[in-house]
């Protein structure tokens, strides 16, 4: 489902003397349907960078990144937008929303964008929020005022609202208490069971070992680090 082939990337800092920083070279990885692969490696080795490249958030200098039948490394913006709408979900570490929009609507948005009716989308969003133990009295408020753990759970609810065939998870269990951590792991397992291809970054090793089928060490793709 997700196939990264011989991918490389540099950052060029034009305003800092044109410094070129090679951050990735020869990265390859394949994830089948129903499989969960963990990206591992020290901080700064490029786990998040690779994930952002797969999402189309960072440009790719060379190589192919196939998600379904779209090559993200070559795709036009509107193709990436369509891919993100129906195929590729991403739970980032940070929640970014329009201020003042109620939590329930934030979570329902991916469903509204894919044609689910207002009522239905809200009902599904409510179910997810309840499952993730966000108290109902908070649903009408904007998540910008929530605690870190609550924001994280809203972000997860939003990321799991639509049944994407491919999912990218950046530290989904960080800053969660044991109860909610178990809920999130359950949701990831369900996504696997329905055939989603998942790539995750987990600093929570117990969660990683429990949920992931394989590990890929990103250090091998880091120029200057690979030995």
């Amino acid at each position, binding site marked *: 489902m997700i196939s990264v082939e011989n991918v490389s990337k540099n950052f060029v800092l*034009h*305003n800092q003397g044109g410094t070129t920083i090679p951050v990735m070279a020869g990265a390859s990885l394949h994830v089948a349907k129903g499989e969960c692969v963990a990206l591992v490696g020290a901080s700064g080795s490029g786990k998040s960078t690779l994930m*952002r490249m797969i999402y189309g*958030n960072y440009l790719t200098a060379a190589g192919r990144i196939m998600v379904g039948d779209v090559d993200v490394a070559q795709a036009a*913006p*509107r193709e990436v*937008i369509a891919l993100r709408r129906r195929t590729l979900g991403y739970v980032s570490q940070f929640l970014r929303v*329009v201020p003042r*929009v109620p939590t329930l609507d934030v979570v329902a948005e991916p469903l509204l964008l894919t044609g689910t009716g207002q009522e239905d989308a809200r009902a599904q969003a409510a179910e997810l929020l309840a499952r993730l133990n966000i108290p109902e009295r908070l649903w009408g408020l904007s998540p910008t005022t929530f605690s870190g753990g609550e924001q994280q759970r809203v972000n997860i609810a939003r990321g799991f609202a639509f049944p994407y065939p491919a999912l990218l998870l950046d530290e989904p269990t960080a800053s969660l208490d044991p109860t909610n951590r178990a809920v999130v792991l359950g949701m990831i397992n369900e996504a696997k069971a329905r055939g989603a291809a998942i790539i995750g970054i987990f600093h929570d090793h117990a969660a990683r070992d429990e949920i992931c089928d394989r590990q890929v060490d990103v250090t091998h793709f880091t120029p200057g680090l690979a030995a």
Partner: protein
Amino acid sequence: MTPLLQVENLAKFYGARIGCTDVSFDLYPGEVMGIVGESGSGKSTLLNCLAGHLPPDRGAVRFDTRTDGLRDTVTMSEPERRMLGRTDWAFVHQHARDGLRMNVSAGGNVGERLMAVNARHYGDIRSSAIDWLGRVEITPDRIDDRPTAFSGGMQQRLQIARNLVTGPRLVFMDEPTGGLDVSVQARLLDLLRNLVRDMGLSAIIVTHDLAVVRLLADRLMVMKDGHVVETGLTDQVLDDPQHGYTQLLVSSVLQV
């Protein structure tokens, strides 16, 4: 899929100075494109050329008309272009007073656009006006008030209602949230997002506010000195800018 708007090599000069030049892009139905750049970068000149407010010196702006498919709006006759401006296009000005009739009631402002496309039944016009005022969160009891009695944020929402009542397919916006309080701005952003999503609108938004484009635009075009220096997916351009100027722009945003 046919693009809704196809822009090819558009250029506008003010004497020897460049307004904007070598601008080409396709905009597809349902897409929202942001144009950013500092003052004087040519973004408003470009928007005005696209919307038919300024005659470009070179290039083509093809619009997918309902009856004849892609037509070059630069070479079409003035009445045809004006008709597009009343029906399929909408233009939201930065200053609401440029887009409103200040001495006509709120309902009249919305109704006028409908009458321009041959609506004649008073009851229908008034009920659509009430419906649209409701959608932009202006209560029906304000329908007979003039925009002069409205706050800046309300005027801006009224301008949006006036523009969208005829069901346009393409909306041009020039700094739609400029000059508004941040709290009013957030509400307007949410409103615009919902309207774009629910009506399947395409929009071109000129702004210098990177946070606004991040929330509203799917795609981004960065301009400097009349040239397009970078284009791409909005979050990609903001998170992984390639051109030196874009890097400077992104790194200059103050953190709150």
